């Protein structure tokens, strides 16, 4: 599962730097020059970039959890192999992004401890359940599809180490998305029961995917540090609209119904009615749609989603169970087995 670097931006960023150096830095950004680790950068830039990369790394390793649970139950050897490879990829992405974050001044252990104690966040979408195989298909089609849209723009950002890492990650996301598309197409050409299961999973994930890009942009977002310094180059609302323009007609062509849903505390759908706002303006190609439930979005971000506690508990369990391995490695007590 992919992470997206859309942490909630702090309301105020203090920029207390030499005006000349800051002006030179901002001119470089405006000229399209990428920032490399040895370059001078404002402290606020370093902190924001660290927060972004750390949030993204956290999302990658937490995002692997719901999919990892499905490896043993994936239908058939090929799907098992593919899902295993995908989960391995996601954890690998976490590894790379933690390294980018380390370069910005925070130790890996501090990042893992801050994650399991709830001091730092991961992407909201990973706090929802995946009760069926069709949910895994939707995660790979809709959530990875959304992540690709977002991450393609992040690969056009201004911080060199993040950009090269994002380009590498995106090359693997292409496999995740294609595999997800194949799963959805297969299910929707299957039995009545498979189609019903897929519709139910789509109902659970459509609004999560809409909320994936984050809340509405604040007025003047382009002038705020994240966009002014090209850490983020496209507005949340713009990405969301592009997502709907691409996926709404595809879902309809597949035979899926785009519903407005209500959910219970477990994240399961309790009612679904067709989205009356849904439609396309033929002159512009822009689709209209019903907004996701932003109250639910903020509630989940604050830790009260269906799976927040479960995800963090598993990460913390893993951190504690792995302590002896880290100690052994730190003291050089690891014997490497012969090569296979």
């Amino acid at each position: 599962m992919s992470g997206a670097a859309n942490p909630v931006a702090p309301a105020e960023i203090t920029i207390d730097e030499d005006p000349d150096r800051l002006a030179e830095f901002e001119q470089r950004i405006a000229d399209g020059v990428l920032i490399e680790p040895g370059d001078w950068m404002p402290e606020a830039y370093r902190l924001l970039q660290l927060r972004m990369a750390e949030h993204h790394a956290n999302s990658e390793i937490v995002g692997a959890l719901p999919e990892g649970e499905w490896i043993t139950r994936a239908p058939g050897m090929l799907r098992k192999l593919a899902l295993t490879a995908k989960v391995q990829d996601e954890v690998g992405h976490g590894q790379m992004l933690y390294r980018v974050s380390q370069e910005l001044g925070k130790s890996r252990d501090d990042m893992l401890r801050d994650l399991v104690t709830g001091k730092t966040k991961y992407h909201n979408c990973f706090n929802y359940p995946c009760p069926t195989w069709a949910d895994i298909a939707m995660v790979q089609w809709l959530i990875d599809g959304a992540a690709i849209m977002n991450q393609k723009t992040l690969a056009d950002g201004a911080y060199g180490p993040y950009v090269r890492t994002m380009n590498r990650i995106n090359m693997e996301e292409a496999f995740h998305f294609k595999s997800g598309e194949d799963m959805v197409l297969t299910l929707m050409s299957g039995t009545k029961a498979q189609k019903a299961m897929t519709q139910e999973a789509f109902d659970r994930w459509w609004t999560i995917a809409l909320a994936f890009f984050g809340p509405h942009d604040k007025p003047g977002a382009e002038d705020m540090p994240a966009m002014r310094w090209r850490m983020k180059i496209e507005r949340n609302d713009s990405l969301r609209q592009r997502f709907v323009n691409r996926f709404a007609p595809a879902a309809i062509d597949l035979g899926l119904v785009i519903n407005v849903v209500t959910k219970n505390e477990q994240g399961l759908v309790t009612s679904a009615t067709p989205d009356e706002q849904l439609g396309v303006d033929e002159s512009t190609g822009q689709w209209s749609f019903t907004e996701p439930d932003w109250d639910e979005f903020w509630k989940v971000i604050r830790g009260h989603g269906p799976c927040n506690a479960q995800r963090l508990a598993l990460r913390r369990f893993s951190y504690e169970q792995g302590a002896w391995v880290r100690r052994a490695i730190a003291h050089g007590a690891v014997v490497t087995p012969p090569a296979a």
Partner: protein
Amino acid sequence: MSKIREQALTFGEELPPPTPDTMHWVVYTCKKPGAPFKWAGYVDAPDEALALQYAREHYGLDEACVGLITHRHEDAIDSEYALKNLEPIDASGTDGDEWTVLTLNRRGGNHQTAGVVHAPNANTALARAQASFAGSKVCSIRVVKSSQVLETNEEELLIWRHHDMSYKLARGYSKQVRSKWTRIRDEQTYEDYRQEDIADHF
């Protein structure tokens, strides 16, 4: 959910003591015999043997490749990351240790191996590397003492497996996905939808 994960997970009130980060290693992969090794990513590992194992399991299995090299991050000495291309300078010599030279074609790009120079120290190695390898597409140069570069290939350590691994590549699905889509959508609609795909992939 699985039976194991339905169990209540228990852990102590306090986190275990912190552990220091292990060494950082930079990894490069080679796609075919004779091609340069290109930056692939990083691993954290406490020693050479584990660094190679981790690099193989992570990056050696991401893409079809025939070899990989890795070195400690702190063993790399980088020139400035220039805003324009580095110009060749006048520096030559064959004395001293062998240094592996990697070049960066643009900021935000990926280092790749360019060749070797001999030099008695890092600064001289950088100068001689700039004399030999700077040019139209080099904005920075990295040198690493060759004795500090670990290498493995498919003969020494199995990397990319020899059976069909297309299930972990986008192209392993492209044909069947197109075929399934075009049963329900016309070719042009599918092509328009596909525009948002990632064009460059393993």
